[in-house]
């Protein structure tokens, strides 16, 4: 009897899934799960009644149909007048559900279907039609409604077919196949299948997964299934498998999944079957606040399952896709809209390929990377960490907490990119997926050729907004941090470069994405010259494993900034004069053949300052640029090509640009926008090449601020550590 009940509840869930839009069905399922866990001794009828009493369910049932006021030509006064009708429908549905429960096996479904037909007729064909397009799931559902009937009763009801009208006969056949396999899963739950022993305390989802798996196991000797349907079933099953492997490690919205699986026939059906097999997870892109488990409900509010944003970023609007007030997430709008009735497809995690662990790298093998002593020491520590982590993680899967991380604290110009090569190499050899993420697109583009050159045999995929390789997968992925939102438990080694840079810093969405893209078997590596305070503290306390690279690859100390007392840029511009000390220093730099970075605080000061310097230094090759400058890329190229001698700019150029022979002038260094980290970064533009290791750095300001002093100390400290470790040439 107990088993029987189980079967019925599975059936009920499936029924729900077929009747409701996906987001709602999902919520109902969660709720059902919860309710069932609570009331074990009550009968099914009581359970259903209890469910019916829950306002959320009522609401879901009531609004499962689309209500479009405008279309009926009613006068909208900002008020909905159809609530009565909705309620009636709700009751209707309730009745059906009960009838369905009470009827014996096959017959109950007929009743339910008839109810559905009544509903279809009542609200017009358009509705059934329209609703079926809501999500990928719906595509399958709208049609499989007819399909299930065919599978069960072996006859096709014309009214049912009409409900699914607009779809070709061919599609209906495919759906029939899907329905047949769902049916098989259901039948086995009725106890015909000896393996389906119920286990105490198992969640409904787990049970459903087991049933569907059992179905796969038995598909070989399909005794009850007609031969033709067996072949069709295998075909669909293969499509589902293909979809599941293509979606592995991804988190995609419905439209994105369709773009990824482009060309495949019947994507909706394949996805649904893959979900039933547990090869991927389908859910609403926004987890609704009202539904869900009680614990979540208490916590309050909806949550975007793609970017992790909470209620603060949710906006509820009337939605024409699902006909209700439907929340969408405004935090990740730029990556396609994630909303309650939108489908989110989460692939399975990528685990390590199971290749035999590579032998520990010999000194000779390591030497091929050509690292300096400082780089080599840090890289070896990191390598040991990565290998240990992956090894222990594949033994016992980590649960819940954030992935193990390692901080590689390397000064500006230390050669961070070369240092990650051995790590990437080691993990790709293990068959793992590697991700290198940086906040900025230009850095990704710059990194791309270097990685391809270092790993000619690996498939490198470069992702950024508008990338051509958007749907490809490879062993090594280079991406901007925003692209990480499209991944879910995907990578075994995640390297996050410039982690203290805009926009990664202070953006919880990107942090969430960077955490979620790590596979359960993963190590995470942070690279920075100026790690945020919190990470520095953790490293000091020993909570965060780290390695420091205090010296540049050319084994010369970092240039230590000199402090100059200067008036503010505003005053200089007003008086059309710069202080004598600054002028002499600049002329000296120009005479020694260096190129000059001049940093100012505000965008609108760049151009006037450039003009002022042009006239004072009698040097025409001076330009100003900023993030708002359309010719920025062009000016930077000219600066790189030495066509420009002086570039006046803001903090946008504090990272990433390497000019062999350069001096750095920071004006208004006492200003609010320049903190210790950005002063250190800007100072790091000087003396980067082996030909000219001793550039000059000047901090000009009215006052000596804490940031300036801290930046100077930071640089001096790094030099001291380097010297004491013998990393500097004497």
């Amino acid at each position, binding site marked *: 009897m107990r088993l029987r009940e189980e079967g019925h509840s599975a059936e009920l869930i499936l029924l729900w899934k077929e009747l409701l839009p996906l987001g709602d069905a999902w919520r109902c399922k969660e709720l059902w799960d919860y309710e069932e866990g609570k009331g074990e001794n009550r009968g099914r009828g009581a359970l259903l009644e209890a469910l019916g009493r829950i306002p959320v369910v009522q609401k879901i049932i009531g609004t499962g149909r689309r209500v479009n006021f405008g279309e009926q*030509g*009613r006068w909208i006064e900002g008020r909905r007048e159809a609530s009565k009708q909705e309620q009636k429908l709700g009751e209707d549905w309730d009745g059906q559900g009960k009838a369905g429960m009470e009827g014996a096996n096959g017959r109950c479904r007929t009743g339910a279907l008839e109810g559905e037909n009544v509903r279809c007729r009542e609200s017009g064909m358009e509705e059934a039609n329209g609703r079926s*397009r809501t999500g990928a799931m719906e595509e399958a559902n709208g049609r499989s409604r007819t399909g299930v009937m065919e599978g069960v009763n072996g006859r096709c009801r014309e009214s049912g077919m009409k409900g699914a009208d607009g779809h070709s006969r061919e599609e209906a056949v495919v759906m029939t196949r899907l329905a047949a396999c769902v049916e098989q899963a259901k039948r086995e739950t009725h106890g015909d299948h000896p393996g389906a022993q119920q286990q105490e305390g198992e969640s409904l989802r787990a049970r459903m997964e087991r049933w569907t798996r059992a179905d796969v196991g038995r598909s070989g000797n399909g005794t009850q299934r007609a031969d033709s349907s067996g072949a069709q079933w295998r075909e669909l099953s293969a499509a589902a498998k293909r979809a599941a492997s293509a979606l592995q490690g991804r988190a995609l919205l419905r439209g994105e999944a369709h773009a990824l699986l482009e060309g495949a026939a019947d994507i909706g059906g394949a996805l649904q079957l893959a979900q039933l097999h547990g090869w991927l997870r389908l859910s609403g892109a926004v987890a609704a606040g009202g539904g869900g488990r009680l614990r979540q409900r208490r916590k309050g509010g909806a949550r975007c399952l793609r970017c992790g944003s909470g209620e603060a970023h949710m906006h509820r*609007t009337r939605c024409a*896709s699902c006909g209700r007030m439907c929340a*969408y997430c405004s935090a990740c709008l730029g990556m396609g809209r994630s909303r309650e009735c939108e489908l989110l497809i989460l692939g399975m995690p990528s685990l390590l390929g199971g290749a035999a662990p590579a032998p520990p790298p010999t000194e000779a093998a390591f030497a091929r990377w050509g690292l300096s002593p400082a780089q080599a020491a840090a890289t070896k520590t990191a390598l040991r960490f990565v290998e240990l982590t992956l090894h222990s993680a594949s033994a016992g899967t980590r649960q819940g907490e954030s992935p193990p991380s390692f901080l590689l604290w390397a000064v500006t110009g230390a050669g961070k990119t070369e240092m990650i090569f051995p790590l990437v190499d080691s993990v790709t050899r293990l068959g793992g997926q590697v991700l290198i993420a940086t906040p900025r697109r230009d850095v990704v583009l710059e990194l791309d050729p270097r990685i391809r050159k270092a790993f000619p045999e690996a498939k490198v995929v470069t992702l950024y907004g508008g990338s051509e390789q958007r749907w490809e997968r490879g062993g090594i992925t280079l991406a901007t941090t925003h692209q990480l939102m499209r991944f879910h438990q995907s990578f075994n080694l995640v390297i996050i470069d410039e982690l203290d840079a805009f926009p990664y810093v202070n953006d919880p969405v990107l942090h969430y994405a960077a955490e979620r893209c790590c596979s359960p078997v993963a190590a995470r590596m942070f690279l920075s010259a100026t790690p945020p305070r919190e990470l520095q503290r953790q490293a000091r306390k020993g909570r965060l494993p780290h390695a420091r690279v205090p010296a540049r690859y050319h084994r010369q100390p970092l240039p230590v900034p000199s402090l100059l007392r200067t008036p503010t840029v505003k005053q200089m511009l007003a008086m059309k004069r710069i202080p004598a000390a600054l002028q002499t220093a600049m002329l000296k730099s120009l005479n020694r053949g260096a190129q000059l970075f001049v940093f100012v605080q505000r965008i609108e000061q760049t151009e006037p300052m450039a003009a002022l310097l042009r006239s004072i230094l009698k040097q025409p090759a001076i330009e100003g640029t900023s993030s708002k400058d359309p010719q920025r890329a062009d000016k930077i190229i000219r600066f790189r090509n030495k066509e420009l001698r002086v570039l006046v700019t803001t903090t946008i150029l504090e990272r990433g640009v390497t000019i062999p022979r350069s001096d750095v002038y920071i004006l208004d260094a006492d200003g609010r926008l320049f903190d210790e980290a950005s002063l250190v970064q800007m100072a790091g533009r000087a003396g980067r090449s082996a030909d000219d290791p001793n550039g000059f750095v000047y901090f000009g300001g009215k006052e000596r601020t804490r940031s300036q002093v801290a930046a100077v100390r930071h640089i001096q400290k790094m030099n001291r550590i380097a010297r004491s470790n013998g990393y500097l040439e004497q």
Partner: protein
Amino acid sequence: MKWLIQFLQRSYSGIDRSIQWLGPSPVSCTFCGQTIRGGGNSTSRAGLPSELPKSFISSVCHSCLYNIPWLLRPKCWICGRGVVCGDCARRTNAYFVANRSAVQYTSEMREWLAQYKYRGNEQMEPLLTEMMVPAYRAVTKLAAARIALRNPALNNPPKGGAVSVSEVHWDAITYVPVSSERAEERGFNQAERFAERISRQFQIPLINLLYRDRHTEKQSFQSRSERMRNTQRLFRALPEGLAHLSQLAAKPSAGKRTASLESGYISETSQRRQKRQILLIDDIYTTGSTIQSCSEALHLQSPLPLDIYALTWARS
């Protein structure tokens, strides 16, 4: 000693942060996301349409606000374009009276509309609608002037003075429909949303009068002649909507009209004026073919004579 210094340093940064918290919370511009500096009150309204709501000014940053290409002085009296317009001169069988748009459809405006329409940033919706208020006033004024012209008796209303904007009565506001496919893909019909907000703000009954027969390609990918061909017989009037409209006209409705009823002046107007004044809302007016096609459908199927005016967000 060292820990004390550390402690002080840490508390310093804590205080620093809390001071930031105490300051006025920064409002970011809905269009560009930049923080709006300074109080919204200090901004001068020079160069802005005088009817622009205050709430709009305070939630848009300075540079966005002053770069909006308003269409304040139309050169073409029919389509509201800022330049003299050949299209309207060529058109011999216009079914609508006139169109007024809020802004020129420049590349920035295109970007804004795309943000809303295609990206689905629905937070922009109230602001985009508020931008239409000056154009709404303009089209209402136009309608008033036309009524006054047609009924010379009304040129001397009992109280003296010309017919003013507030006294003109729109019988209904309606919008250009989208196909159900598009509505589902996008989640909303932008024209419907605009119309809804305007109807609420000015208390005009919103009636859905139109239905889109077939699903067409996005118009933004089409040439002028393609658009013209495509929009032919694309729309149908909804009988329910038309019935609702005539019902509305039969019985004097409550609200604004009663307020100025004291002299019996307005009720007199509505009796004499037999044509129903309809305001049709859409997002963009490009060749006018959509508006024309909608108006045609309404004219052909409506039992009542109609005067159809269009109000659009942008004129390209």
